[in-house]
Every structure is written in C-alpha cells, then in structure tokens.
C-alpha cells in the first residue's frame, strides 16, 4: 500500500474545516497504524468467531474489523485505500455476507425444515456451525458497510465532483 500524494481535492480528508487544513502525511501515524492495524484486525476476527461462547459476535467483530480499515484510510489517505479495496470487491463481499446468512436459512428450507431451522440441515452440530456462519456473514456485512459508509461520506455528493462547495 503506497501513500501517494493526495493532490486531488476529491480525496482530501481532514478534521476541521475542510480544505483549509488538507491532509498531511504523518510518518508517525502511518507507522503506528502499520503496526496496530493487524492486531485490531485480528481482535475483530476473534470477536466475530467467538460470539457463540463469549461476549461478542459478528456485529461487534465486524465493526472492529471495519475500524481497522478506517484507521488505515485515515493514516494513508482515503483515495489510496479506496483504490486498494476495489469497489467490486466490496460489493461482492457485502453481497456474500448477506447471501451467507440467507443461504443458511434457505438451506434449512431445502432440507425440509422451516426457514432458519438450523437443526434441519443434515450436518453434525449444524446448529452451532450454522450460527457461527451466520455470525461470520453478519461480520462481513458490517465491516464492509462500515468501510463503505466511510468512503461514501468522505466522497460526498456526486455533484461536488464538479464544483468545489465551500463557504
């Protein structure tokens, strides 16, 4: 992942009053994020997978994973991060997450049970694994959504691509 210069205004992200304080590369932040992000990511995955037996679950884990990516985006710039995570991949992921959830529900129907009747699926411990998979599905949806919301908000309304709106 490169931290290319962010000359184009579209990708500017900063706290404060917009382009008055453009994004400035900070080696310290970048280094910190480089080290911390993998840990946060792992924590998120852990929370996601261990929701069945301890506090946490797909939703919480998903948010944490999403936050890890936000950290990267804030440190290295929204534009490069967005290029890194291609739009198609994010779309495919979020669809996959929801499809996973519904797929399990429908698999139960296909196995002759009711919708979301995990025990109807003819697999050992189908309930536990079914719930785990559902949690993972939720985790994917949530993490992609968190990232997607961030990107979309950071990009703003499409009109602004053409005109610089400022007080």
């Amino acid at each position, binding site marked *: 992942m490169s931290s290319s210069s962010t000359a184009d205004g579209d990708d500017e992200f900063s706290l404060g009053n917009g382009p008055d304080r453009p994004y400035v590369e900070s080696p310290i932040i970048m280094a910190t994020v480089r080290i911390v992000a993998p840990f946060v990511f792992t924590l998120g995955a852990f929370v996601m997978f261990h929701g069945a*037996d*301890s*506090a946490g679950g797909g*939703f919480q884990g998903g948010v944490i994973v999403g936050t890890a990516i936000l950290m990267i985006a804030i440190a290295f710039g929204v534009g490069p991060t967005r290029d890194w995570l291609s739009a198609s991949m994010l779309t495919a992921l979020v669809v996959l997450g929801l499809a996973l959830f519904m797929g399990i529900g429908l698999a139960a129907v296909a196995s002759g049970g009711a919708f979301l009747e995990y025990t109807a699926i003819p697999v050992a411990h189908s309930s536990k694994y079914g719930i785990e998979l559902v949690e993972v599905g939720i985790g994917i949806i*949530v993490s992609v959504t968190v990232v997607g*919301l961030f990107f*979309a*908000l950071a990009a*703003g*309304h499409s*009109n*602004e691509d053409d005109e610089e*709106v400022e*007080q």
Partner: protein
Amino acid sequence: MIDVLVDRAYFVVAFLLLGIGAHMVIGDRNLVKKVIGLNVFQSGIFLFLIASAYVTGASAPLLSEPGPYVSPLPHVLILTAIVVGVSLTAVALGLIVRIYGEYGTLRADLVSEVSDGE
C-alpha cells in the same frame, strides 16, 4: 418517594435522556446536532430496556458461567436497535452532506426556507 427514585434511578436517567434527546431533535437548529439528539433519544430507550433485564447479583447470560443470569432477550433487542440506530445515523449524515452541498448551510430553519422556495 425517595426509595422509588433510588430503586429506579436507571429508569429516571433513561427518561431524562429521552427528554434531552427529544429537545435536541426538536429544538436544535443545527442539523448535525439534531441527528446527535436522535442518537441520545434512542439510547434512552436502550437504557430503559437493558435496565429492565438487570437482576442484582446475576451474571451475564453466558451459560458457561454460573447462574443466575440476567435475561438475554433485552440485550438482543438492543443490539439490533443499536445497529438500526447507526444505520439511520449514516443515512442522515449522508443527507446532511448533500444538503450542505446544495444550500451551503446546516441551519434547519434556513434550509427549509430556501427549499420551500423551489
């Protein structure tokens, strides 16, 4: 009287949060703060429900730990509601960004004045 209040301090706080949130949604002129108010309002409801599940001395509903447990159902409801809340917040903020792009202000009164003229 005091006992009633003390025993139900969580509910009292929940009600006050509802009041504060409602005031922000209705009264604040800044659109962003209206949305913040909506979040406060909703978390008042969350507190109301989570507090209802609480049993002094009980543990969280992790069945691997020894009981008694608090009821898991309100927790589930509120988990869902929190997710709904953040989703709504995101869409609201998107709208605010767009409104600002169109009108250059976040003042609710000015925005409705300008948009009425269209």
